[in-house]
């Protein structure tokens, strides 16, 4: 146990860095990049917390994790208590500790970040969650007495899980329905093993099972069972739709149908969920990347996940092709940095205009056009414009299109009375998350458009609060 230093001393401690797997080594395997803190580093980092009276970090967290309190426990060496404190607000601490964009959330709000570097809240969160898992003594919060109310959660991604966790604690009978064969949504199909091992997600899902949440895989709401059947025949008093934004966007370029051209969703699903990285055992193939040229089109976190997966599949050259400059890149700085260390080549200010193939229908190259930045557009980022006559052809065997996703229409198109906006996202009240159909709530990416794990979890919590109110009062 460490004693608390006076504030001036605390501020002298530099931010502790996360030990990581050597870049050259990790570019060849799918094991986790970040290795986790040990208790000495964790306690040293916890010393840096200024224990603010009004903790800005908690306000910066979409699910309101009580950061100051849990960091206090870390400093006292009470790691299990720290984990239990996080679990009061966050059902997936081992996940969020790994994949949250903390720099924009808790750590971005940290007072230390004004003059020094912010407290490494994400790393500490991961530390206590991993410690808790290693001991097998998970401090699950107490469940309220059963209310007899049934809630169906459609989709088992971060929004659905977070909502389920809160509702089950309030005593409701909660069933999570998932279309795929594994629970976790984007956490298992979209985020690669080296950033979020599937076992971590499995562990958190197991904890939720222990809390009383029921899970059903292979259920496509809208197809396997309709919303009408859920509400009228199967007796669900409320439904939370958290289906995410999983519809891949393509660029509508010539040659997009060629063999070797993937959406990021398909590429990552094959590699992660279907375990194509495990060539010896997996029955799901991935188009050969070994010793070949792979380019990922896009500059977001998904693009980084895809390009780093390609490297690990043995790509000779793995490129990011992004039409703006690195400054505008939406991916987390840490991910870009990791990608560069591993050997990803960045073709910023480049845009594909055509995919080229051979007579058998396989991709052989891409025609790229150079771009330059003009005045800012609606998004506030400088608008990329093509440089005339700058086209050139780059040899390419695999292309992955990672330019974003749209709303999956499956639930909306089969559910009367559930209104959507012009992009197909479900219309839900910002505060109550109520949709236009009685008893049906919606949140996460299917309402907001593609965002982050933690924002989806925040939406799930908000929905849980509102669903609980509805179930208690019966008023719509």
């Amino acid at each position: 146990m460490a004693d608390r230093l006076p504030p001036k001393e605390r501020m002298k401690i530099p931010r502790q860095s996360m030990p990581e797997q050597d870049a050259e080594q990790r570019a060849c395997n799918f094991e986790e990049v970040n290795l986790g803190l040990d208790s000495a580093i964790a306690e040293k980092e916890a010393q840096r917390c200024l224990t603010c009276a009004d903790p800005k970090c908690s306000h910066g967290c979409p699910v309101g994790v009580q950061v100051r309190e849990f960091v206090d426990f870390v400093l006292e060496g009470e790691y299990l208590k720290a984990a239990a404190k996080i679990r009061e607000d966050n059902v997936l601490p081992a996940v969020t500790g790994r994949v949250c964009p903390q720099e924009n959330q808790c750590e971005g709000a940290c007072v230390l970040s004004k003059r020094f570097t912010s407290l490494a809240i994400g790393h500490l969160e991961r530390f206590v969650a991993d410690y808790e898992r290693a001991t097998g003594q998970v401090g699950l919060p107490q469940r309220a007495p059963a209310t007899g109310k049934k809630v169906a959660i459609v989709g088992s991604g971060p929004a659905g899980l977070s909502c389920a966790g809160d509702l089950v604690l309030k005593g409701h009978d909660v069933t999570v329905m998932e279309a795929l064969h594994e629970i976790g949504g984007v956490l298992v199909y979209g985020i690669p093993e080296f950033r979020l091992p599937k076992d971590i997600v499995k562990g958190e899902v197991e904890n939720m099972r222990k809390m009383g949440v029921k899970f059903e895989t292979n259920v496509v709401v809208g197809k396997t069972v309709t919303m009408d059947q859920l509400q009228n025949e199967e007796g669900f008093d409320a439904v939370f739709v958290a289906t995410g934004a999983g519809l891949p966007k393509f660029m509508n370029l010539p040659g997009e149908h060629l063999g070797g051209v993937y959406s990021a969703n398909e590429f990552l699903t094959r590699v992660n969920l279907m375990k194509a990285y495990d060539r010896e055992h997996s029955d799901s193939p991935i188009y050969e990347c070994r010793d070949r040229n792979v380019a990922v089109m896009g500059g977001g976190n998904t693009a980084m996940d895809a390009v780093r997966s390609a490297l690990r599949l043995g790509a000779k050259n793995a490129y990011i092709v992004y039409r703006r400059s690195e400054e505008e890149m939406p991916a987390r700085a840490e991910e870009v940095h990791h990608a560069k260390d591993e050997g990803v080549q960045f073709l910023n200010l480049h845009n594909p205009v055509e995919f080229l193939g051979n007579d058998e229908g396989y991709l052989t190259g891409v025609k790229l056009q150079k771009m330059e930045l003009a005045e800012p557009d609606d998004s506030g980022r400088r608008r990329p414009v093509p440089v005339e006559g700058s086209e050139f052809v780059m040899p390419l065997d695999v292309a992955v299109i990672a330019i974003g996703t749209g709303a999956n229409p499956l639930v909306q198109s089969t559910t009367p009375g559930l209104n959507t906006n012009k992009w197909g996202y479900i219309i839900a009240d910002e505060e109550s998350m109520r949709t236009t159909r009685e008893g049906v709530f919606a949140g996460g990416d299917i309402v907001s458009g593609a965002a982050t794990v933690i924002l989806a979890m925040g939406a799930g919590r908000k929905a849980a609060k509102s669903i609980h109110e509805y179930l208690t009062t019966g008023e719509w």
Partner: protein
Amino acid sequence: MFPITEAKFLAPDVKRICIEAPRVARQRQAGQFVIVRVEAEHGERVPLTIADSDPDAGTITIIVQGVGKTTKLINMLEAGDALADVVGPLGEPSEIEHFGTVVVVGGGVGTAIAYPTAVAMKAADNHVIGIVGARNKELLILEDEMRATTDELHLMTDDGSYGEQGFVTQKLQQLIDNGVTIDHVLAIGPIPMMKAIADVTKPHGIKTIVSLNPIMVDGTGMCGGCRVQVGGTSKFACVDGPEFDAHEVDFTILAQRNRMYRPHEQQAVADLEADPETQVAQIKHCQLQHQHPEVGPKTK
């Protein structure tokens, strides 16, 4: 787990399998499919059309031709075994209405896909003409079922070992030449057959529907792997299809995309055939390990 209640070979490498899947059995309509996984740990997801269902018994029927590793594995299973996953019904149902005279063309195992739509077409009071083809007598399936649901049935074999000698396209051409008024054609079989049927009907302006079988992963519109070119635009076979206007489909691109993993598939089949017992034993071992605790509500 999804228990297999019946399993019977209809032809060499073609097996009819009934599976307990109550929710799917209740919801399914002609033209829809399921995605199954045979093995819980490393199995791939394969789409298979639902040939029939019994909502009361809570079972669906699939007819599986063993061509790749997974379909060959499925065909090694017996009643009492189980599939790791069955999800569906997926895809849009066939468009069923009273068209008048409908010709249903089934090539090889494609007959299993055409059959439920033929039943629905008959129920919608159409005059249904069936043309069922196969390479030889042994490979011709569902003759009795098709005979029971069609007003007239033509059986074609490439080698003349049964029915008439010739291709299904020749029979269709013959019907057209003989002045039979055809309002609607549904053709399901190998890609070259579907393309050939489209070529026969196009000059006569006969609306022709085909059910496509592209490579697919999730089946819910999420991966985009099953994209097909229809009328010059990209469609997802899993949610926009699987049935499309045959005259609009780019069959060349479909065939090319379906060949994408051929080396991998050939290797997987070779590995399986080298040691089938071990692979089946692995599935059964995995099934014991992965008894899903969660079970859907009884719909009976």
